């Protein structure tokens, strides 16, 4: 059996969806012509419940809505830019205003399709989905939480958007872990805390290690559920923090930093919040994810340097 850290985050998620579908004939999986290795088993074993709706996201969301309104448990899968934005109004009205338990899975977080240009850069999905009152939003940092989140999604009673990365990640969670809080303290809170989400949580942990080598001790929180944000996290952060750095692979507008800023604005506090995110730009540039991170100050070295500079002020 593979160790979690050797398992692609998508396989961890979709293997769990397969198990759920094997036990529940009401589960239907729709894909907008998007593949994943671990989906092939689903397609092979439950062909009538695996529907490729083709490159037609608006119809895909409508079909998902109609199925869910008739009692089906529906998962919808596509590239995050297309499955969140091309069919935004269909999601807003047909899923959210009806409060149907449709689970939308967006692949291609941040710059994971970096070479394909701004059409494929998943850097605004959270901001867009966050505008929908009924939508619960998750961003997953490793294979363990991917499996746990699939189980949670199967039981949801309202709309859910899950930002699903690709590749392998260090273990922060176990598949059987209770993730209902929507956040996890990976290093105990200090006066300086790094609050990160998704892919950037591994960067946050590496940054914390680099800072420790220079005798700077920081707390690290992974925020997996971006909406609704757990208010207990806000209380804990206010109780301990002087400075908070948010780390996200999302544009500055509307992502984790913005969410935390909004939450802190409702409480009296003297915390300095620094938001490390992707600038509000559309990148007509092509390169690897690592290249984009380096170019935008989101690689571990740049983050560490920036934090050192900010805390020494």
């Amino acid at each position, binding site marked *: 059996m593979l160790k979690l850290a050797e398992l692609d985050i998508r396989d961890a998620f979709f293997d769990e969806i397969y198990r759920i579908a094997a036990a529940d004939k009401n589960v*239907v999986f729709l894909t907008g012509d998007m593949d994943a290795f671990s989906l092939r088993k689903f397609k092979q074993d439950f062909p009538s419940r695996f529907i490729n709706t083709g490159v037609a996201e608006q*119809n895909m*969301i409508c079909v998902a*809505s*109609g*199925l869910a309104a008739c009692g089906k448990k529906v998962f919808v899968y596509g590239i995050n830019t297309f499955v969140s934005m091309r069919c935004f109004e269909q999601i807003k009205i047909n899923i959210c205003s009806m409060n149907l338990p449709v689970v939308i899975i967006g692949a291609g977080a941040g710059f994971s399709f970096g070479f394909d240009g701004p059409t494929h850069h998943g850097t605004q999905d959270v901001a867009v989905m966050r505008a929908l009152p009924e939508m619960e939003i998750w961003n997953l940092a490793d294979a363990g939480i991917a499996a746990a989140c699939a189980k949670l999604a199967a039981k949801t009673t309202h709309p859910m958007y899950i930002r699903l990365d690709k590749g392998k990640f260090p273990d922060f969670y176990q598949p059987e872990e209770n993730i209902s809080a929507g956040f996890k303290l990976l290093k105990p809170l200090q006066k300086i805390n790094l609050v990160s989400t998704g892919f950037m949580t591994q960067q946050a942990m590496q940054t914390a290690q680099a800072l420790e080598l220079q005798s700077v001790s920081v707390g690290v929180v992974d925020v997996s559920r971006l909406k609704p944000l757990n208010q207990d996290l806000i209380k804990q952060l206010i109780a301990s923090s002087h400075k908070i750095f948010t780390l996200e692979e999302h544009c500055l507008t509307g992502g984790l930093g913005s969410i935390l800023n909004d939450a802190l604005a409702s409480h009296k506090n003297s915390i300095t919040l620094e938001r490390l995110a992707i600038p509000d730009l559309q990148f007509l540039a092509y390169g690897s994810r690592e290249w984009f991170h380096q170019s935008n100050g989101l690689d571990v070295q740049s983050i560490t340097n920036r934090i050192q500079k900010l805390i020494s002020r």
Partner: protein
Amino acid sequence: MQIKQLQQKAAWVRRQVLEAIAAKGKGHIGGTYSCTDVLVALYYAGILRIDLKNPRQPDRDRFILSKGHACLALYSIYLDQGIFTPEKFAEYGVDGGSLGGQLDIHIPGAEYNTGSLGHALGIGCGMALAAKMDEKKYKTYILMGDAECLEWSVWESVMFASEHGLNNLIGIVDRNRLSVTDVLDDEHVFRNFKEKLQMFGWNAQVINGHSFEEILSAFEAAKNSDKPFMLLANTIKGKGISFMENGIKWHHSVPTPAELDKARAELKKNEDALSC
């Protein structure tokens, strides 16, 4: 219900719609009147198998009025069929009231939230597919406007329905040939409209959307179709009131007192003729 009774019912619905719009100063009279006869056929001629006393019964036929702005005709039907009390019907157009200018599922009898066009045919595809998966006999009916067919999402759903063999899906296009600001002639999307649908794997039939004989005959064919079925109902926007018919301003205009008197007189004359 006999044809004459259906015509009487449609005349009664048109009167309720006129009075509600006049009383509240708001409503989409033109596009409501163009599809009134189709709606009356659906609800009174035994087409829709929906127990309106138990409108959420799982095996009911599904009906979505995609052009939700024609809701006043449905409210009138719900009033007549006892889903609404007269007090409930009077909530139309009242600030904070439960009956607005579009449909939502908090309104008893309404199947889905509507208001934005180009969505309902795809939702209907999902409902029809669920019926197939569960081996249920219910059918799904979607009533759209013709201007709505400019939304490309409609055509995504047209293709999906035929690909998945959804012969339990029945669409109706209220072809009244007018959008909010323009005439929709037989060019572009409407050129060879029926043939386009047939090429996409549907059965389609062009009917006079104000002839109950043609409407009922087409629904009979639709129910027994081996493919998804589209009724292309040629209609008249503002049908039933001479000065509103085919008048673009009657998309959502409210009659003046003088126009109201004239409209009432015309509807009365029609009702009297039908009662002979």
